[in-house]
């Protein structure tokens, strides 16, 4: 049988406990009630879960790298994204032009990162507009309920049943494509799913005691909604936001395909791919880099979004 160390340091048989082991502790040693471990907030808990998900973390790092490159990529290339060089069109990747050049002799490396920046901006702005409108409308629907909810819900139902891509295309045909109109058009129907998610969350939360407590202390509806309810619904909101970004990036690329994307000389990844496609059989490398980058960006957003959802709502995890 194994031996254990007693307080005195002498090794004895576990059965043969001495009287010294049963001494009464004085009060200073009673630490049962003291919190030893640092308390973990819900956010920290989520962060710990997220951090242990290596795919999500890898995606986050790649996304950060893409953002950094989108910011500085143009300056390291040594070329301007607009400057044309008719002596060097459609060149293969070389030490001068790392990703080659396009049909007007513009540096593909500089343009790719510039395009990545534009695509990311479209995604971010669309997500932000969705966030603001969706949270306000969804909050109002969920909090007030009744007639207000009924009417807003009907409006959402009808707007949602109109195929959103068609509305987006129509609007951009009319408004002329630019970053602003693309984001505007994407947001026209984009906020609805966000509004429904917020509505559902608020309806669950609004009967909790802390809301009652706040109200009995005299807080108004606006304060309860924005200081208490929405901060508590932030998890699903963030997850929806993460999923909105790749969708918006894809939609912008799709619009580029119709010639309704960001206009030249600026470029998004979608417009670059569309331009490269016309000469793909001859100059496939022009297509390669933007195509890989857009796929990688969307992949990372999807994996990170999944990881975030698992981290914020572990019950959802399968």
């Amino acid at each position, binding site marked *: 049988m194994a031996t254990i160390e007693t307080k005195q340091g002498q090794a004895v048989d576990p059965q043969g406990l001495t009287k010294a082991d049963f001494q009464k502790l004085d009060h200073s040693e009673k630490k049962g009630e003291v919190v030893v471990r640092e308390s973990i907030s819900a956010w920290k808990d989520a962060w710990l879960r997220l951090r242990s998900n290596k795919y999500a973390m890898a995606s986050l790092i790649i996304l950060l790298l893409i953002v950094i490159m989108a910011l500085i990529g143009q300056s390291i290339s040594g070329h301007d994204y607009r400057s044309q060089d008719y002596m060097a069109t459609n060149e293969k990747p070389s030490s001068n032009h790392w990703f080659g050049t396009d049909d007007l002799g513009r540096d593909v490396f500089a343009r790719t990162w510039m395009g990545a920046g534009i695509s990311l901006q479209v995604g971010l702005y669309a997500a932000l507009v969705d966030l603001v409108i969706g949270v306000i409308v969804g909050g109002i629907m969920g909090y007030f309920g009744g007639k207000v909810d009924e009417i807003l819900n009907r409006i959402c139902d009808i707007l949602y049943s*109109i*195929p959103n*891509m068609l509305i987006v295309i*129509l609007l951009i045909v009319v408004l002329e494509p630019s970053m602003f109109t693309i984001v505007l058009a994407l947001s026209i129907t984009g906020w609805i799913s966000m509004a429904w998610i917020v509505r*559902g969350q608020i309806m669950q939360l609004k009967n909790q005691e802390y809301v009652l407590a706040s109200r009995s202390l005299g807080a108004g509806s606006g304060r309860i909604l924005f200081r208490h309810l929405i901060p508590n619904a932030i998890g699903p909101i963030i997850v929806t936001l993460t999923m909105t970004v790749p969708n918006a990036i894809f939609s912008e*690329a799709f619009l580029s395909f119709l010639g309704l994307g960001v206009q030249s000389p600026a470029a998004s990844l979608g417009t670059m791919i569309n331009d490269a496609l016309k000469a793909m059989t001859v100059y496939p490398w022009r297509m390669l880099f933007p195509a890989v980058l857009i796929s990688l960006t969307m992949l990372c957003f999807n*994996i990170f979004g999944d990881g975030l959802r698992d981290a914020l709502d572990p019950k959802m995890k399968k």
Partner: protein
Amino acid sequence: MIRYLLKKLFYMVVSLFVLASATFFLMKAIPGNPFMSEKEIPKAIRAMLEAKYGLDKPLWSQYLTYLNNLIHLDLGMSMKQQYTTVSSIIGTGFLYSLQLGIFAIILSVTAGVVLGIIAALNHRKFLDTFTIFLAVLGVSVPNFVVASALQYFLGVKLRWFDVAGLNDITDYVMPTIALAVLPAAFIARLTRSSMLEVLTADYIKTARAKGMSGRIILFRHALRNAILPVVTYIGPMTANIITGSVIVEQIFGIGGLGKFFVNSITNRDYTLIMGLTLFYAVILMLARFLTDIAYAFIDPRIKLNSRKEG
């Protein structure tokens, strides 16, 4: 049930009306008109042209004529292709798009369900992880990248298939794959997660305890219930396939609806844009309607007349 479907039908009509009006007024809001060109058209001819297309009348009367024509399924004439009605263009294009769409639906449902089952049966093993990875990849890689990669590697490099066109049956292979990747990935994820849920249900344990063979449990008991979420995906899948077809038809040079849609936008052929938009909208709404009906038939637990409570 009937009441629920009637309500849905009513919403469909309202949305269609909203969309039709929106397209009409948006198209009218565009500055200029289709008869403005580089060459100055003589005033008299221009007036005649405007009278022919009813553009000389006030806006509200044009709107009423437009709605009236819509009710009679008359989408007007194409503005850029002379002597062709929008309906006849839709008629020719739809045939190709429909064929491709049906092939893509068959491929994506089969591939998606099979992959989903494989993943669920190998939960947390290599095949599961691998399938999830494939599915996330399928959702993430935009279909124009898939289409052009297929075209380049299988068409240009390996020369297995013709690069473009739709002349014989092998020409359908690449466009169908390109269209099916995204929905297949979605279906695989849906099937996997609902399979996992169903496989731990009590009635599966009962079936197993009764000594039924794995295959009967899988196909007769588990799959039947696991397939339900896939049915709800019919609506979004149609939307995905339509947006996909716009891209895929353009890349593979197929004269379907999608290609006409792109062309109508680049040519600013407004009547054609309006007609195609409405046609797509009708198809999408029908797909959603079908989903609702199918769901009610497959799952008797769902009472369609119960009100949605948040």
